[in-house]
């Protein structure tokens, strides 16, 4: 009989939901009641909507408990551990019986996320027990040449997972072909796209896979130094990376003549970003590592030719590196059996917004948007109508409901005007205003524009002003045309990806939701009832009982009325904060 194990998910999301307290409580009861089981930590399990998550593995099977706040710990330990009877109603996934959430996992293929939520990210031994560092060992044992490894990556069809979608093998080949005494490998972990957390989960959940991917890249292109450029907003990821690097060094996996490969030296450093979205662009990222303002420069020369300190440099995204060891170990053929003709393998998405089952999912390329939202994601929250999905963050666009049969691959997504991006997938329902969303993204890119190119610096500002006017009901005829004209000018005259893609959220929303723009501009109406200046709150006389709750809750005293009498909202004073709407128990407040 093997020992029972209890594993608690302690990623940032889990911790935010209170998993730390859950862990402590399990530990406390374990000690006071002298219970016999092994208590372990892991990182993100992916089911954000069921955090905190606790997995119990015993002789009979595996049981994943969801929403385990402190109050449930005692009951679960009492019944499951002491009396061997699992509590089915709390279980979200098990190999013993079907759970209502099983669809979330069905259809997923775990390659990049293979270890996330399964191992303790702070233990190098646990990583090694899952074929960790076996890919680089295979290279050493089979005496594979750098060209052979690059060929494997080329054959796999892997394309950059940071958003651009450039063939990873080609990138490596360029850096390999540029002969120089010093070369660098950089991992771009500056996940700045608001609404995305794939890279954070990978860094927190399986840091050694990134290290191994970078070591393999270093061997392939002939680099001896690597940098991980990680956002400072991810303190837990940085902590776990530091632990991983220390342990790898102790074991001799980083340093000189590693893995018995003669003359192969490789070591890693972490550089913390300082909060600049544009540093996700590779030349800006390099400038930032060098200690400069993170402003992009003209390409060519590409980093593969002249990158960090003017040496050939290969930059890949976190998820790309996480795929590498798996591809080398299992072979490219096994990888490219997933996906479509031009987009091979899998992609990790952060499914968020108005979705029932939000979380981290890894799906084979070619799956449709519809399948992700309705099958894995369980549909829209609160039974509302699905309106659009935003892919690619501030550089991407909104794909409307009627195109939800679009398969997820680089080319099909690009054809809609959105981009694959790094994997943020924000779901919107009928109560989300697309003009407000376009304004939100422009506000973001306008603030994050580095200011180098005039059109990006001033053009985004002008676009933001127009969009703000439209959402306030001050839109004019011709605004849509001006937005389109500015969009094209910004796209054509910006140096880097930030400027070239900044207008995408506006262009796609105009393309698919022009009627909403027109409603704002001509009728001064917000169809989604979101834009504050364009809505009014009123009391429905038939439903009002005169309970005075709304009047008491109103922060600006805009509601008047005696007890048990009809209440009235003064539109002049009302700030449309919506407090009355949420407080009324009798559905007597109407939004129009």
């Amino acid at each position, binding site marked *: 009989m093997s020992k029972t194990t209890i594993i608690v998910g302690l990623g*940032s*999301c889990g*911790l*935010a*939901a209170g998993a730390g307290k859950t862990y402590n409580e399990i530990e406390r009861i374990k000690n006071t009641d002298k219970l016999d089981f092994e208590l372990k930590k892991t990182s993100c399990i992916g089911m*954000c*909507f069921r*955090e905190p998550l606790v997995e119990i593995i015993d002789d009979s099977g595996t049981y994943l408990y969801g929403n385990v706040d402190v109050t449930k710990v005692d009951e679960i330990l009492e019944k499951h551990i002491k009396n061997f009877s699992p509590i089915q109603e709390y279980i979200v996934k098990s190999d013993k019986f079907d759970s209502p959430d099983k669809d979330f996992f069905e259809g997923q293929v775990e390659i990049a996320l293979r270890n996330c939520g399964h191992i303790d990210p702070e233990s190098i031994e646990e990583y090694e027990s899952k074929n960790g560092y076996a890919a680089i060992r295979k290279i050493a044992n089979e005496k594979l040449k750098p060209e052979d490894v690059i060929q494997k990556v080329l054959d796999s069809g892997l394309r950059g997972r940071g958003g651009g979608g450039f063939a990873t093998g080609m990138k490596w080949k360029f850096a390999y072909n540029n002969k120089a005494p010093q070369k660098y490998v950089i991992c771009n972990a500056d*996940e*700045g*796209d*608001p*609404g*995305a*957390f794939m890279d*954070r989960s990978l860094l927190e959940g399986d840091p050694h896979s990134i290290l191994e991917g970078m070591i393999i890249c270093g061997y392939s292109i002939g680099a001896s130094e690597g940098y991980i450029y990680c956002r*400072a*907003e*991810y*303190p837990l990821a940085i902590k776990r990376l530091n632990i991983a690097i220390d342990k790898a060094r102790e074991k001799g996996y980083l340093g000189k003549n590693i893995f018995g490969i003669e003359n192969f030296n490789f070591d890693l450093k972490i*550089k*913390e*970003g*300082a*909060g*600049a*979205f544009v540093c996700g662009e590779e030349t800006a990222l390099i400038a*930032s*590592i*060098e*200690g*400069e*303002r*993170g*402003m992009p420069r003209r390409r060519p020369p590409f980093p593969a030719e002249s990158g960090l300190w003017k040496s050939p440099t290969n930059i890949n995204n976190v998820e790309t590196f996480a795929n590498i060891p798996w591809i080398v170990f299992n072979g490219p053929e096994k990888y490219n059996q997933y996906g479509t003709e031009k987009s091979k393998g899998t992609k990790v998405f*952060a499914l*968020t*917004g*108005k979705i029932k089952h*939000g*979380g*981290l999912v890894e799906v084979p390329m070619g799956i449709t948007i519809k399948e992700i939202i309705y099958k894995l994601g369980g549909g829209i929250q609160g039974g509302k109508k699905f309106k659009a999905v*935003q892919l690619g*963050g501030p550089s991407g666009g909104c794909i409307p409901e009627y195109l939800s049969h679009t398969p997820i691959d680089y080319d099909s997504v690009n054809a809609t005007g959105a981009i694959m991006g790094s994997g*943020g997938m*924000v779901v*919107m329902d009928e109560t*989300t205003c697309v003009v407000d*969303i376009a304004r*939100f*993204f422009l506000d*973001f890119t306008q603030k*994050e524009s*580095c200011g180098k190119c005039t059109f990006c610096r001033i053009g985004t500002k002008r676009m933001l002003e127009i969009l703000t006017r439209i959402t306030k009901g001050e839109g004019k005829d011709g605004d849509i045309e001006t937005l389109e004209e500015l969009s094209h000018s910004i796209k054509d005259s910006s140096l880097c990806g930030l400027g070239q893609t900044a207008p995408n959220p506006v262009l796609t929303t105009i393309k698919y939701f022009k009627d909403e723009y027109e409603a704002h501009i001509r009728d001064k109406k917000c169809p989604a009832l979101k834009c504050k200046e364009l809505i009014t709150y009123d009391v429905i006389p038939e439903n009002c009982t005169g309970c005075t709750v709304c009047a008491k809750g109103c*922060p600006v005293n805009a509601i008047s009325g005696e007890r048990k009498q009809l209440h009235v909202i003064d539109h002049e004073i009302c700030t449309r*904060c*919506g*407090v009355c709407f*949420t407080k009324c128990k009798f559905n007597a407040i109407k939004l129009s």
Partner: protein
Amino acid sequence: METNIKSILNNYPEGSADSLIPMLQDIQEHDGFLSKEAVIEVGKYLKMPASKIFGVATFYNQFRFTPLGKNHIQVCRGTACHVLGSATVLEEIEKNIGVKSGQTSRDGIFSLEVVACIGACGLAPVIAINGNFHAKVTGESIKEILENYRNQE
């Protein structure tokens, strides 16, 4: 304070240009912000004009040039949080503590900052106070959260 800055600078014996950002991060971690004196000190050490250092520091959102309050509130304004109502939460906080983003309340109890994305989108809207996350915050629940921090005084 000066001796502390010296000890931070001494962690970077090579004194190369690429240590500038990590140095500023260490100083801010220690002091809570970058003072003029600290910047000048770094300039002397790296043989770099202070104007250049300010040029780099003001480029990045992370660096602050005024001290923080006792409790530092970070409001996530990522897309997922926005879609689920973070604007209302931010408005409520601004009203409650009486300052705008980037400022510190007069009593010094709170300082407020807007951040691009904390990466906990599954629990949106999210705020962090002194690095502790609060998930699924609403315009209502935030009042209680702030009150708890206030009562700790």
